[in-house]
């Protein structure tokens, strides 16, 4: 598929010259020059909305640049994704595009099936997948079904897919977002191995430690422009952070003051079953006091999602009790939880958080729309909705500041702001924040943290579910760890450390 590299070694794998891409109202890419040499790992960093993904869409042929030139291995790229992919460019997206009930091998060969016109040679496919896996340390059972794999394993399937197609320039879009520490290290090993083999990697992220650990060069984007392109040995995290944000970054807010409130959220011996009939929660007990943040750490998939759902009435527990204040929540609907003052920042904002085809205003009143002033009897008060939206937009800095804009068109960071704004506007008694900073840049993360701390100081009982230990250690008054549906330990902040938590996260009982 890929033509042999006839170009000389000093030539560039990817070269972008003065690429400009304008969207209505936004100059997404402004005269961007990018040079990626053969065999290097090139990181592209930037805040939300810096233009990273637009640039990659231009590279992959998904979007056509208004001006400028894109060269892939010396050949001009012109808006045809399948042609670009045939030239050897492989994209690994953050959201995997896999067929869940196909096997690994079937997914990998999808679109390039071996065999003659009629027959599918699955055996050859499995063999090819096994060989590729061995070569690059991507160990997977070719016959396993995607739906049975962990997120990290699914990502390996995506990588196998592009390798199978013979791609030698591979773009990874925020690949570490969903991975555990262990998986992240394995991924990095694989990437290094690929580079040793002569492939070129472009790596999009905003985690600066990863950049420092992995890449050879880094290009920093800010507001659609390239602000720097540096060799990794010539820079450090602080410099990169400053380049990325465009100003000096102060230390994040820290929590202050002791917890004095009563227990508001009390969970005892809670059990729940997942969709697939497995025991997702197995006797979970904890309490959260008013004005306290309880951090819940754990590797993803250990019951966090089910816990959040039972705490908001979306999943009916199979046993145990949840008490809010002095009320038992037995048999409550989601609406009753809401009315009792439980607010939730859901882990997947596009699924549970926002209604994308709704406007910002509509999303901001969702869940309160039946109350005055937004509804008078049966009729919505659009004026009141707009007024509320305007005030929340300015309080939470949602961009663009127009209540009538569809949330679908917002960046992920701004969508998250919409969710946070809406939930905090409910003046919650109990706030459940599941991965509240996932996908946010540094500024967004600091903003979300300060919001949580403000709610804490206002006396809300906050359960912070996160797989980001740093976040949990920064914010939590106490830290609980969940493993396989059980709480393996609850530590006061003072006693917690990454090491201790790490042990608890893999199931070591205290």
């Amino acid at each position: 598929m890929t033509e042999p590299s006839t170009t000389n070694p000093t030539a560039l794998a990817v070269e972008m010259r003065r690429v400009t891409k304008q969207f209505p109202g936004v100059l997404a890419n402004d005269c961007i020059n990018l040079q990626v040499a053969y065999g290097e790992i090139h990181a592209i960093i930037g805040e939300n909305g810096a233009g990273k993904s637009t640039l990659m869409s231009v590279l992959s042929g998904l979007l056509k640049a208004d001006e400028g030139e894109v060269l892939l291995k010396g050949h001009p790229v012109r808006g045809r994704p399948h042609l670009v992919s045939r030239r050897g460019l492989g994209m690994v997206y953050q959201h995997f595009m896999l067929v869940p009930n196909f096997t690994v091998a079937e997914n990998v060969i999808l679109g390039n099936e071996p065999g003659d016109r009629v027959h599918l040679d699955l055996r050859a496919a499995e063999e090819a997948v096994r060989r590729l896996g061995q070569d690059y340390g991507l160990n997977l059972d070719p016959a396993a079904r995607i739906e049975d794999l962990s997120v990290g394993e699914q990502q390996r399937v995506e990588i196998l897919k592009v390798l199978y197609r013979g791609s030698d320039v591979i773009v990874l879009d925020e690949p570490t977002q969903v991975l555990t520490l262990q998986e992240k290290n394995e991924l990095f090993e694989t990437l290094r191995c690929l580079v040793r083999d002569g492939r070129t990697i472009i790596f999009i992220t905003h985690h600066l430690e990863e950049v420092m650990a992995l890449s050879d060069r880094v290009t920093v984007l800010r507001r659609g422009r390239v602000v720097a392109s540096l060799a990794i040995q010539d820079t450090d995290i602080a410099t990169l952070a400053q380049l990325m944000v465009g100003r000096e970054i102060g230390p994040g807010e820290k929590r202050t003051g002791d917890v004095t409130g009563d227990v508001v959220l009390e969970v005892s011996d809670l059990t729940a079953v997942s969709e697939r009939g497995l025991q997702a929660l197995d006797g979970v007990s904890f309490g959260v006091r008013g004005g306290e943040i309880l951090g819940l750490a754990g590797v993803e998939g250990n019951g966090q999602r089910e816990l959040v759902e039972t705490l908001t009435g979306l999943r009916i527990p199979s046993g145990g009790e949840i008490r809010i204040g002095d009320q038992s929540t037995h048999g409550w609907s989601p609406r009753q939880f809401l009315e009792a003052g439980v607010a939730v920042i859901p882990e997947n904002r596009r699924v549970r958080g926002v209604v994308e085809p709704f406007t910002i205003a509509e999303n901001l009143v969702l869940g309160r729309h039946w109350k005055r002033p937004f509804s008078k009897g049966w009729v919505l008060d659009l004026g009141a909705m707009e007024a509320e939206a305007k005030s929340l937009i300015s309080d939470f800095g949602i961009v663009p500041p127009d209540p009538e804009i569809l949330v679908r068109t917002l960046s992920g960071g701004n969508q998250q702001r919409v969710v946070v704004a809406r939930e905090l506007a409910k003046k919650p008694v109990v706030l459940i924040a599941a991965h509240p900073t996932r996908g946010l840049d540094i500024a967004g993360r600091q903003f979300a943290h300060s919001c949580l701390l403000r709610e804490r100081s206002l006396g809300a009982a906050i359960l912070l579910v996160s797989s980001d230990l740093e976040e949990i250690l920064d914010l939590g008054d106490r830290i609980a760890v969940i493993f396989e549906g059980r709480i393996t330990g609850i530590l006061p902040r003072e006693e917690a450390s990454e090491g201790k938590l790490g042990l608890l996260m893999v199931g070591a009982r205290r």
Partner: protein
Amino acid sequence: MKDLSIRRIVRELGQALLPLALALAVGAVIILAIGENPLTVFGLMLRGSFGSLRRLSGTLQEASPMIFTGVSVALAFRAGLFNIGAEGQLLIGGFAAAWAGFALTGLPGPLHVVFCVVAAAAAGLVWGLIPGILKARLGVHEVINTIMLNYVALSLTNFLVGHPYFKEPGQIPQTRDIAASSVLPRFEFLYAHAKVNAGLWVALAVMVAVGYLLARTRYGFEIKAVGYNPEASEAAGISKSRVIWTTMGLSGAIAGLAGAEQVLGVFRCFVSPFPFGYGFVGIAVALLARNNPLAVLPAALIFGALTSGAQEVDVHSGTPREITVVLQGIFVLFIACEFVLRRKRRVGETEGGPKAGGKGREEEGRGEDG
């Protein structure tokens, strides 16, 4: 999004008419292939639908039930439900209207009409609630149930029409004539023998009411929210199942009204076979109207005109009537294509489009590969 500039309106209109233009173009080729002149045929179609007051009244007569079924299907669509059952709901509603029309006597005129209309709506409501509740409570897919209920409705009304209690004595399988007090006045001012009737006003009122419901009420807000994103709606305390069964019920009631319009205005009894196809055309009408209740009116007029014009073609040219049916089919096909393309473009916009920043794109990460 609030941009209501002339350009936008023109573009929207153009997008709606593009399928029609394409269908006419393909139709022209087919008509040529059978040796007729497309211009003549199209001229006939135009004349047949708008050429005189009589023909105009025919077009309006066809459009009236399509407005009801179009609104019915569009409403269900907004809640993410696919109501293929408008056909059956219409039948049941029509039958109920006929029953109330001949069985209740001694009521003053307007009141009797109201009774009949309510009976039709109630019958359609029941016919919509069945799949609605099955979907809401048991998760049974509404498409299957509504299709099956179409057959149940067809067989049930066929059976009942033949029953001595309902049947008008004589050859023709129809119910007794409805009482004069329950007749919807026909538009005789338009044309002496017009069949289009005051049911059209009801249709327009229902259309506007549903438009208002969706745009301005709490319930409409919840319908849209559930239609767009059931998970997020649930998390926001909206009862998904309640929205589903109430919307299916309401959608059924509206389709049932189409039956009342046919019975009280056009036939003045329930005839067998009852007019067939308005429920299905309703799907095409809703599609063309992009599920916007107010756009159902022009969409229904277009389909009404196509149906009405078909007859003119049959009478006055050598072109077989089937050609106009083919034309309608191609039209629907192009609407569907356009619909899909539009969605694709929307995805495209989200992908790299006018985001305040590119992050959303990274979040989505759904690239298209072809």
